């Protein structure tokens, strides 16, 4: 195989590089091209689609193209946030893969000048009955906890699904939100010819060479353990010092710009800084503090050693910058300079070892059109795990199913409190709520993405995921300010995946445009595919919303005597549901979603929570109305008596549809009868379906009857640790 082929470049791409350079690249240059022209860095199969997403909004402070997006929350403060994947590293080495995934997303937020205040994670694994899944789950959860806990940044929420298509290719998406003074935020663009380039943080070693960029830009095959050396090793202590150091550097106004080092290391961070600033940059690899003395120039340029940041500094401030780094015991060195050349020049001592035009390296990669084709039939394997048709038995089985059962086992391993902001911890409410006293308000954060439903219909499934995220925010009284996303898909060169990806992005764009939700940043992870096929198409949607008063953010269990209402245009169906999965009957297609009507319900719920009159609110999601009611009952330790007949009549439902059907746009609210009744009459569907009380969950639908003791439901819901320790 040709050298460029081994590095993942096609012959045509190599030809283009030779043309742009007017000569063949040398080894250093070829290594740099191979990384920046990889899928992971160049988004060559997704950039054309991503450009269609709306990114403008009155509250948007920073949008796509920066290290993270940011929205204004008032009083001079902004929230920076982003979600990013670390899927393949976690498949190969779950602890370090997940830990460095968290480390990486934290640095993206730190690079904007923000202090991270919250981490959320969206995780996907195969079914828990395999040893591999239990090994991956254990390592990933430990890795996330290790990094976040050690950094003193709370992990406040997230979601975990277990589905067979993720068995060999788990997903580890980490989201971080940070707070910054809006006028103190910093961009990544290098500027000021003659300004110095300072590298801060860990020493540069041979770890992670070709890690994220090569590992993340091809399918996983056999012998993945051979790739273990390409996984980076995290050191949260270094990052903790780097965070505090960057905060002090920015407070003292010592930096012109700041950028983290992630995939492709110095090559991408210095290249992107130069590209964004329209300048050239010289980097002398002889000045880079090294962990191993004999590293080659190309190794230094592509090393993915963690916990490093790159800053542009005016020459007269350099001494102050290095002194602050010394205070925090973080290594630092001037390694280069901003130039007017427009070239990215690599030197060793005085000798030039590589020279590439910045625009050819950073923006020269060809962007590809996809060749989408809808598959004629359902492409994923089905598996039957439930035979019963008795609704009580079905309810207990769903509550105990791995994707629905309580994830407290994982949340218990995360510091959810540090920072003294967490008003709703992971698992307490539909979204995490964090106090931001600096800005005189709170924020809510949620992350959602049901890949199974997106597999059923990529367009509608993505719309549902976006609505679900907004619905979760509404349940704590939050209005969304901005959207971030991580698009996890299989190999985009295959027509089916290309179709999933393009339909999904269309759905995301359409719903965000309709609801005026700006997409301020995101990440794409492709090639999540093994010889057994692609993962479910999994767009993970993250949102940050504003909560005026955290004491009015619901998240409380219902009380005996509370009136229970179903709110919104939910039209439940078994299509794509947990029950359909358990019966091994999944197939293509989802019912249409009435986005406008759903948005009306979202607004009603948000206002009801904000008024403080309603303290129990949750959206109907996995497992349908019966499962949602059971979760509310077991949280409160108080049962309920509910009649779904009126709901069945309105939407012409079968008993199973009413009990276990899923779909967007439904909420369960509970509270005083007067408070619930006062919500009606505004054009949003509202049906009073029952009352909280007693020790039994009783739900009738048509002739069918659920009758389950709260204690039994609780035992089923809390059963995950047994499956994990099995």
């Amino acid at each position, binding site marked *: 195989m040709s050298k460029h082929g081994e590095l993942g470049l096609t012959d045509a791409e190599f030809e283009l590089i030779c043309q742009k350079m007017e000569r063949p690249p040398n080894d250093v240059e070829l290594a740099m091209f191979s990384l920046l022209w990889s899928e992971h860095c160049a988004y060559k199969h997704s950039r054309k689609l991503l450009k269609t997403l709306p990114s403008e909004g009155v509250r948007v402070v920073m949008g796509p193209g920066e290290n993270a997006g940011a929205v204004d929350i008032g009083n001079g403060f902004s929230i920076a946030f982003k979600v990013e994947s670390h899927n393949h590293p976690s498949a190969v080495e779950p602890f370090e893969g997940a830990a460095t995934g968290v480390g990486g997303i934290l640095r993206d937020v730190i690079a904007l000048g923000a202090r991270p205040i919250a981490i959320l994670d969206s995780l996907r694994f195969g079914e828990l009955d395999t040893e591999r899944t239990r090994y991956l789950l254990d390592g990933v959860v430990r890795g996330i906890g290790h990094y976040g*806990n050690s950094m003193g940044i709370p992990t406040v929420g997230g979601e975990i699904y277990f589905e067979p298509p993720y068995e060999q290719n788990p997903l580890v998406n980490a989201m971080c939100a940070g707070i910054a003074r809006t006028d103190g935020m910093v961009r990544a663009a290098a500027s000021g010819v003659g300004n110095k380039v300072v590298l801060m943080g860990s020493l540069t070693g041979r770890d992670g060479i070709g890690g994220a960029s090569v590992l993340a830009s091809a399918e996983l095959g056999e012998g993945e353990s051979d790739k273990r050396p390409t996984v980076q090793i995290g050191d*949260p*202590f270094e990052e*903790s010092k780097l965070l505090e150091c960057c905060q002090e550097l920015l407070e003292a106004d010592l930096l012109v710009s700041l950028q983290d080092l992630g995939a492709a290391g110095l090559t991408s961070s210095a290249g992107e800084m130069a590209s964004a600033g329209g300048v050239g940059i010289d980097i002398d690899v002889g000045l880079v503090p090294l962990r191993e003395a004999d590293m080659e120039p190309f190794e230094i340029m592509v090393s993915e050693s963690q916990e490093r940041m790159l800053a542009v500094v005016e020459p007269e401030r350099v001494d102050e910058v290095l002194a602050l780094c010394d205070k925090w015991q973080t290594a630092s060195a001037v390694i280069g300079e901003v130039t007017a050349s427009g070239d990215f020049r690599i030197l060793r001592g005085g000798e030039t070892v590589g020279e590439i035009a910045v625009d050819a390296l950073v923006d020269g990669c060809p962007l590809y059109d996809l060749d989408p084709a809808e598959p004629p039939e359902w492409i994923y394997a089905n598996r039957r795990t439930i035979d019963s048709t008795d609704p009580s038995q079905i309810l207990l089985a769903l509550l105990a199913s791995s994707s629905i059962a309580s994830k407290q086992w994982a949340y218990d*391993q995360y510091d959810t*409190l*540090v*920072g003294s902001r967490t008003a709703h911890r992971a698992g307490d409410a539909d979204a995490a709520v964090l106090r931001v006293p600096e800005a005189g308000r709170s924020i809510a954060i949620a992350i959602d993405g049901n890949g199974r439903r997106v597999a059923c219909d990529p367009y509608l499934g993505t719309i549902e995921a976006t609505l679900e995220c907004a619905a979760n925010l509404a349940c704590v009284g939050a209005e969304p300010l901005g959207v971030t996303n991580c698009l996890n898909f299989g190999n985009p060169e295959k027509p089916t995946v290309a179709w999933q990806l393009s339909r999904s992005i269309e759905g995301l764009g359409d719903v965000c445009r309709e609801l005026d939700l700006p997409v301020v940043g995101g990440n794409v992870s492709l090639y999540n595919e093994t010889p057994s096929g692609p993962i479910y198409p999994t767009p993970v949607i993250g949102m940050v919303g504003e909560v005026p008063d*955290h004491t009015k953010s619901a998240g409380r269990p219902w009380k005996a005597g509370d009136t229970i209402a179903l709110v919104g245009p939910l039209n439940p169906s078994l299509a794509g549901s947990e029950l359909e999965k358990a019966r091994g009957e999944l197939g293509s297609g989802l019912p249409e979603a009435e986005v406008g009507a759903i948005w009306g319900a979202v607004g009603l719920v948000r206002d009801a929570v904000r008024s403080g009159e309603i303290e129990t609110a949750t959206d109907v999601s996995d497992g349908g109305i019966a499962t949602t009611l059971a979760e509310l009952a077991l949280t409160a330790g108080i049962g309920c008596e509910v009649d779904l007949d009126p709901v069945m009549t309105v939407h012409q439902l079968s008993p199973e549809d009413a009990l276990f059907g899923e779909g967007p746009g439904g909420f369960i609210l509970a509270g005083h009868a007067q408070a619930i009744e006062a919500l009606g009459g505004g054009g949003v569907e509202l049906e009073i379906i029952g009352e909280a009380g007693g020790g039994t969950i009783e739900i009738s639908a048509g002739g069918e009857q659920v009758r389950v003791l709260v204690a039994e439901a609780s035992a089923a819901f809390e059963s995950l640790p047994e499956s994990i320790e099995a």
Partner: protein
Amino acid sequence: MIWGVLQFPGSCDERDALHACRLARVEFGDQARLVWHEETDLSGLDGIVIPGGFSYGDYLRAGAIARFAPAMSAVADFAAAGGPVLGICNGFQVLCESGLLPGALLTNTGTRFICRQGELVVGEADSPFLSRFEPGEKISVPFKHESGRFYAPPELLARIEENSQVAFRYAPGQNPNGSLNDIAGVINEAGNVLGLMPHPEHAVEAFSGSTDGLRIFQGPTRAAGPVGVAA
């Protein structure tokens, strides 16, 4: 009171502790500032908090490197002179490593980091930090740590119990880490140094579900009393 909260590279809960110190006796104008790990002059401070986190990355063993910090020699002098010193979580580990408190903290029996709200029972110990509690009282504070299993060899453990040096025990059935005798916190023999694994600084405001932790910070008072008012 003017509190000093130590800050090591790798500290995590120092700002939370600062906040708790300031909140403790707002009416008396209590203040707090961070004390950098290289500082050796603690003059002007009435109390010291060693906060939670992972000082110097907690490499080697939790708290093992921090005991050699310049600020810790000053803290030892401060404690010897009778000044109130509170070590929380990593701070407790540092105090044990420094020999300012008896015992050691080992990895939780479950080998995992745990974070959950739990209950403590206040011990019989005589300490200014406990002056606002009744012995036997139950309080609610969060537990969060990976190396919180209190251990002392049998003779030392017996002495700790005989001297009534146990400040807090995990409530029956709630010991999260395998600590001997359910011990969650201990004082020194003089009573002016308290270390505990649970986090009182995260139970000082209503939003967190409990304000019981605040009373630990309200315990020590400067002889002068309220600012500008004679005691």
